[in-house]
């Protein structure tokens, strides 16, 4: 199915908006259950909701990057008529080189990828966090180098 760049970029932004909505909802819910824990139904405890709040941004960041990667893979497959590189690092380098993405923006996208990898594989390791807003900004700039349609 043909894709257009603007819709793809908008889809990445929508995930950030969903994160903002989820955070607002969970903060509201937490305020209420701290006041009245009987609002909770088994097996959910206040601590579970606390944990969900703590991990909400990283959860959405993983989803944000997955959407970005799916767009880039789809673009590669549709345009070059072959399987995209299996490693995401190679995929970004390949598309970056073919579309003339600046080295700085390719590097920015790699740093989001590396942060996403750390969140998945070493969630407790010390790491320089990248906010979801900063991640969205970097990944949308990369996507802006794709053609208008493919």
């Amino acid at each position, binding site marked *: 199915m043909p894709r257009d760049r603007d819709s793809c970029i*908008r889809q990445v932004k929508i995930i*950030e908006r969903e994160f903002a909505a989820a955070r607002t909802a969970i903060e509201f819910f937490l305020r209420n259950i701290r006041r009245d824990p009987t609002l909770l139904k088994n097996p959910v405890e206040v601590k579970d909701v606390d944990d969900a709040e703590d991990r909400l941004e990283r959860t959405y960041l993983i989803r944000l990057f997955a959407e970005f990667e799916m767009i880039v893979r789809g673009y590669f497959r549709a345009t070059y008529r072959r399987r995209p590189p299996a490693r995401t690092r190679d995929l970004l380098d390949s598309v970056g080189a073919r579309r003339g993405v600046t080295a700085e923006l390719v590097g920015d996208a790699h740093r989001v990828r590396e942060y996403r990898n750390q969140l998945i594989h070493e969630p407790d390791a010390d790491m320089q966090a990248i906010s979801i807003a900063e991640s969205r900004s970097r990944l949308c700039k990369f996507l802006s180098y794709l053609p208008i349609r493919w």
Partner: protein
Amino acid sequence: MSENGSAEKIKAEWLTRLRELMDKVRQWAEDSGWATREIEFTLKDRRIGDHRVPALLMQESAVKLMLEPVGALTPGASGMVDLYQMPAYDDVASFYYSDGQWKLHWPGHSAPNEDGVEVLPVTKDAFSRVLTEMLAHAA
């Protein structure tokens, strides 16, 4: 009125308000020397149904902005439109329709409310301030 009839009415009013805002902003941007281009996209909305809406791209030098509808039904308002800096999709400001008029919510500027957001009437002067600041910020 049936539920569908009500949804259709909300959608029609929303599209009318959007048209009014888009036309005003487009004129103000062009008066300030910005190039503009209107595009259309499908706004997904499970309450009033998916529908096509206009969005406005504005560009001056290297600064590119997009005025993009968010939704007809938002808490405390009958419509929300965001202004983003492109291509990063960074938030710049938001327009809310309430009390029968569009209002501009502009974070991080003088005279903010308790949320740190300045609420301005949507006028040519107010919008020109936003454009001027975006250019100054980029310089």
